[in-house]
C-alpha cells in the first residue's frame, strides 16, 4: 500500500501545493475522470451531479472540485431523498454542501410519501421504484437537467459493465441496452434533442479498491457509517440491519443489540446490511476489504430481488 509518509490518523490534509503522492494508476484514473467531468460542463446546457452521499459520490464530488479549480463546479448537486436514509448521511450531506458552498437540491417524491410508500410497508422493489427511480425522473424533468452525473462503476454489477460513460436516455429517461451509442476513443457523443438527456459516469473505470485507495490518498471526508462502531442492530435475512430510528418495526422476539458494525455501501437504512467489523480507520477498512470474500453490493437487499434486477431498474430510469 502506498501511504503518504505524513499521513497518520491525526494528520490533517496535505498542505496545498505539496507534491502529489498518487500512484500512476490512481493519477491516470483521476485525470480521466476530470476529463469527463469537464466535457459535460462544456457540452451541456444544464448539468447536475447526482449526490448520493456515499463514498463514490464523495470521490466524484472531490474530482469535480479539482476539475474546475480555481473555480467551482458549474453545476448543482442533486440528492434524491427517500426519507429513509441514515440520519448520519443527511447530516453529512448538509455539512458537505455548506462547507463547499455548493448549491444542493434535495428532491423527495411527495406523491409517493403521501401514498405512504416506504421500504417497511411497501417492500424494497416498490419503494425503490417510487421513491428513487420515479423521484429521480421527477427531479430531472422538473429542473430540465440535460446531463446528470452518477457515481456508478462498471465493476459493481454485470449490466453496469456494459454501460457507456456517456449513456443516452430517451425523453422518458429510459435506457435501451441494445441501442447504445458506440463510444470510441474519448470522442464522446454529447448530442441530444430537447427532452432527452445523458447520464454520465466519471468513475466508470474505477474499482472499489481504487475508490478507497483514492479516499485515503486524497484525505476525502466520508460518512462515519463506513467506520466500525457499536451500533444498535437486528439480524435479518442473514445481515445486520441498523435501527436508525423508531420507524423500523421490530418483529416478535427482535431486540436491537449493540454490535461493532460498519457499512460497505449506503442506502435506505432498512435495506442496507451492515457487516461486523473492527475496522475503524481507512487503513483498516482497506486491509479488511483485501481479505474480504464478498462483493460490496452483497449488503444491498434491493439487488437480490431477482436475477438481473439492476438491468431492469436501469431500463426504467434508475441510476
Amino acid at each position, binding site marked *: 500500500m502506498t501511504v503518504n509518509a505524513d499521513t497518520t490518523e491525526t494528520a490533517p490534509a496535505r498542505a496545498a501545493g505539496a507534491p502529489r503522492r498518487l500512484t500512476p494508476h490512481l493519477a491516470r484514473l483521476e485525470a*480521466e475522470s476530470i476529463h469527463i467531468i469537464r466535457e459535460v460542463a462544456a457540452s451541456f446546457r444544464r448539468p447536475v451531479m447526482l449526490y448520493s452521499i456515499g463514498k463514490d459520490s464523495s470521490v466524484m464530488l472531490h474530482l469535480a472540485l479539482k476539475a474546475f479549480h480555481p473555480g467551482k463546479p458549474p453545476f448543482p448537486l442533486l440528492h434524491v431523498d427517500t426519507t429513509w436514509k441514515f440520519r448520519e448521511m443527511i447530516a453529512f450531506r448538509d455539512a458537505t454542501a455548506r462547507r463547499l458552498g455548493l448549491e444542493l437540491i434535495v428532491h423527495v417524491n411527495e406523491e409517493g410519501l403521501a401514498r405512504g410508500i416506504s421500504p417497511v410497508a411497501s417492500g424494497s422493489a416498490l419503494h425503490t421504484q417510487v421513491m428513487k427511480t420515479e423521484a429521480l425522473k421527477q427531479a430531472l424533468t422538473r429542473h430540465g437537467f440535460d446531463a446528470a452525473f452518477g457515481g456508478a462503476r462498471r465493476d459493481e454489477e454485470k449490466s453496469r459493465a456494459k454501460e457507456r460513460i456517456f449513456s443516452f436516455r430517451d425523453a422518458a429517461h429510459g435506457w435501451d441496452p441494445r441501442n447504445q451509442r458506440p463510444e470510441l476513443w474519448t470522442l464522446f457523443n454529447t*448530442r441530444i434533442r430537447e427532452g432527452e438527456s445523458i447520464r454520465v459516469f466519471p468513475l466508470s473505470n474505477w474499482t472499489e479498491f481504487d475508490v478507497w485507495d483514492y479516499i485515503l490518498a486524497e484525505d476525502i471526508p466520508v460518512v462515519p457509517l463506513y467506520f466500525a462502531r457499536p451500533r444498535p442492530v437486528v439480524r435479518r435475512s442473514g445481515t445486520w440491519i441498523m435501527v436508525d430510528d423508531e420507524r423500523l418495526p421490530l418483529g416478535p422476539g427482535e431486540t436491537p443489540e449493540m454490535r461493532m458494525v460498519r457499512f460497505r455501501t449506503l442506502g435506505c437504512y432498512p435495506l442496507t446490511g451492515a457487516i461486523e467489523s473492527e475496522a475503524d480507520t481507512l487503513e483498516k477498512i482497506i486491509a479488511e476489504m483485501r481479505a474480504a470474500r*464478498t462483493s460490496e453490493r452483497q449488503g444491498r437487499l434491493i439487488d437480490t430481488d431477482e436475477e438481473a434486477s439492476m438491468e431492469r431498474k436501469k431500463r426504467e430510469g434508475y441510476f
Partner: protein
Amino acid sequence: MTHHRPASAGQRELLRFLTCGSVDDGKSTLIGRLLHDTRLILDDQLAALARDSRRHGTTGEEIDLALLVDGLEAERQQGITIDVAWRYFSTPRRGFIVADTPGHEQYTRNMATGASHSSLAVLLVDARKGVLTQTRRHSIICALLGIRDIVLAVNKMDLAGFDQDHFDRIVGDYVTFASTLGFRSIVPIPLSARHGDNVTRRSGNTPWYHGPTLLEHLETVEVEQDLADKPFRFPVQWVNRPSQEFRGFSGTVASGRVAVGDQVVVAASGRSSRIARIVTADGDLPSAEAGQAVTLTLADEIDIARGDLLVPAAARPEMADQFAAHLLWMDEEPLLPGRTYLMRIGTLWTQASVTAVKHRLDVNTREEHAARTLSLNEIGFCNLAAAQRVPCDAYAENRATGAFILVDRYTNRTAGAGMIAFPLRRASNIHHADFVVDKLARAALDHQKPAVLWFTGLSGSGKSTVANLVELALHQAGRHTYTLDGDNLRHGLNKDLGFTAADRVENIRRVGEVAKLFVDAGLIVLCSFISPFRAERRMVRDLLEEGEFVEIFVDTPLEECMRRDPKGLYAKARAGAIRNFTGLDSPYEPPEAPELHLRTLGRTPQDCAEEVLARLRALGLMA
C-alpha cells in the same frame, strides 16, 4: 485460503487490452478464468454464478466462467456476447482493464470500440479450427485501429491433444497472414481457458512450450508508451474563468509534454503565446505530459475557445478541410456520400461529408472493392470535406488528433468512426481560396444544388401531400429545404392580397421572388400553388436560372378532386359561396412541358412522391 489480491494497484502502468476471436473461441471463458485465478471472484458472485450455470450454462455441472462476463439478460438467453463488456483486475505487478468484445461479424463496430481503447489485443483461436476468416478480420481491425502488439492465444488445446505440431502449424499460418499488418510483436501461447492451462499457471500438458503464461506476459509486456514523445497536442476543453483575475484553458494533454515558458500556438488562428502557469488543484506544476488533466494559463491574452488545439510552433499539425480517411460505418442507416454529418475531432465539433468512397475494404481479405456507400460494420477508404479547416494528424502518427466520429444530424446516433490517413492538398481542393460567398458557395456548404420544385394543379389534386412527402425524403437525405404555400404566405407576407385576378398574379409574383431569395441562400424550395395560369408560372421560371425551376404538374381529374374535396371548398364553390374557383368558374391551364407530369389517379401519395424523387435524381438534384 491465501489471496493474491494486491496490496494496491501500485506503481505499475495500467494495461488496457481487448480480447477478440471468433464466435466460440472462448473469450468470455478466458476472462472469467483470469478473474477467477487472480481471486477476484468473490463468494456471493460465485454463488450467483453457480445458480446461473445451472440455468444458462453450456458446461453441464461445471461452473461456466463465461457467464461471469456475459452481462446482459439477452446475451445470457442467447448465449452470445453482443456488446463490449469492461472488466477490471489487478495482480501485484499490474492493473488491467479488459474490453471483452463480440466475435460475430455484425458486431465489428463493438470490436473496433474495444480496440480504440486498447494498446494490446489477445486474439483467440480455437485449436481445432485454426486461423479462420474471423481471425483475419479481427487482426485487420486491430491493425486499422492502431494496435501493434498481439497475443495469439491458441485456446482449447485440451481438445487438440496439446499437440505441438498442431500448435506450430496454427502459429505459422497466422504469422504468414499477419506479416503485412505492421504488428510490432506477435506472442503465441497454447492454452485452455476452461481448464486453466498456461493462463495463470504453467501447464504440465505442454512441456514443449517454454514461453510465459498469458498472465505473465500481460504483466510484463512493454506496450507502446511513446505518446509523451510525440509533439505536444492540447485540445482545449473548457475555458476556466472564475473571476476577472484568472483565465485558464482546461484540458487533457493528448500527446507530448509542455513546460512553463514554452511557446505555444493556437493551431487554427496561428496566434502564439507562452505558457505562464500549469495549474492543478494540487498546486502548479513545472511541466505536464500526455494523459494529465491540467489548466494552462498564457502570458498573453489571445482568443481561445473550446475546440481550439494548442500546439508547439515548431511541430504543428496539418490544417485541412479535406482529407482521406478510413471510415468504419456504425449506423443502421447507410452512409450517404454528399450528406452532411456532424463531425467531432478532439474537442471540436464541425460538419463534414464524404465526397467520395474510394473503395470498401474487405475486412476478411483486405481486398479493395469499388463502392458507392458503406453499410453497418463496413469499412471504407473515403475522401471527406469538412465545413472548416481542422487541425489534424495522421491517425498512425497520433491517435488523439487523427481520430474522429461522424454523428447523424437528425437522429444524433454515432454513425461513423474515422481514422485520418492524410490531408488532401490544396491543389486538389475544389473550392477554396478567397471566393465571395455566393449561391454556389452556400449550396456547396450543404452539398446540394438549389432549386424550386413548383407543384401546380387543381385544388385537392394532392400537391401539398406529395410535396410534404418529397420534402421529408429530401430532409432525411440531408438536404436543406423550405416549403412555401398558401398557408405560410397568405397569413403574413401576402395577407393584404385577396383573390381577384390581379391579386392572384401579385401573390404568385411575390412567391416567385421569395423562392428566388431562398434559392440564392442555397435551399431547395418546395412551392405548392394552384397557379392556374401558364404566364405566371413562366414568370417565376424566368426569375430563376436555367435548370433551377422544376415544374411538377400534379394531374388529378376534376371529378376526383371534387370527390376528395379535402377542405370542403368545391362544395362551397358549388353552393355559390366562393367565386372564381379554379376548375369550376375559372380556367386551369395545364403545363405544356413540365419537368414532370405526375398522374395521381389510382396511386398512393408515397408512390407519387417516389416518382418525383426519381425525377429529381435524374435531374441531378439528389446527387
